[in-house]
């Protein structure tokens, strides 16, 4: 049942990822990208990482997609970007084939199929995924967490300075 759901979602994500590059209209590509993001969120749920799934939907399918669509609208690609783009297709095929071989080798070698460290699937299930992240973030990784707020502050100031400049 779970394997069936996985293959179904994987199929949808691969097809929608294909149409991200295939669609002529950039807005259609953006909508296909949302579908891919949603499929990734389902994968996170299957991997018992519900917090990652929530972030995937909130930040990627929500905020990042708004930004991408606004870029499309700002640049007004809709009217000019309709020409066929066949550049580097051969290179892309070779590259994706090579990365497929590397990924298959890693999976067959078993180096990525096992969890490393003291946090196993059982610990995640009994303690809770979000709780584990919260515990690590607010005790062990306290400094990076506070630095993240500085980073966000810099980004806020930068966004305002860049867009409020008089031209």
């Amino acid at each position: 049942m779970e394997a069936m759901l996985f293959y179904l979602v994987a199929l949808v994500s691969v097809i929608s990822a294909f149409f991200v590059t295939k669609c002529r209209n950039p807005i259609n590509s953006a909508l296909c990208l949302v579908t891919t993001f949603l499929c990734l969120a389902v994968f996170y749920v299957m991997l018992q990482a519900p917090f990652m799934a929530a972030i995937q939907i909130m930040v990627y399918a929500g905020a990042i997609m708004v930004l991408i669509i606004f870029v499309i609208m700002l640049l007004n690609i809709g009217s000019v970007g309709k020409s066929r783009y066949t550049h580097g297709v051969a290179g892309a095929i070779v590259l994706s084939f090579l990365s497929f071989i590397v990924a298959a080798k890693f999976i067959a070698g078993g180096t990525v199929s096992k969890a490393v460290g003291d946090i196993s699937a059982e610990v995640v299930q009994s303690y809770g995924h979000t709780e584990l992240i919260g515990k690590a973030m607010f005790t062990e990784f306290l400094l990076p967490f506070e630095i993240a707020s500085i980073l966000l502050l810099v980004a806020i100031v930068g966004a305002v300075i860049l867009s409020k400049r008089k031209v």
Partner: protein
Amino acid sequence: MLENYLPVLVLIGIAVAFAVGSVVMSGLIGMKKPSAVKLAPYECGMPLVGSARERFSVKFYIIAMLFILFDIEAVFLYPWAVMFKRLGMFGFVEMGVFIAILLVGFIYVWKKGALEWE
């Protein structure tokens, strides 16, 4: 584990069924008398002002950008809220510092007039 997400699946199923059903049913049993006016694109029945394929103002973009930044701030609140009782006062002060730093950014945005639609 995955059984907990059955309501989500049911909700998605209902949403898809309603969307597909509305289109299919209106195509099957709806009346079709197309005319040039009926097939024209419309917005709330108003006459068209111009093409939708226009360049948008950067004002939209700054709002979206600020939305992302404060969205990420909200994401940090989730693991904190789950662990709030166990972290106690320590966690409260930590999050207080985090929010205070971002509050400086918010005041900056406000004072700079980036939220004004001038």
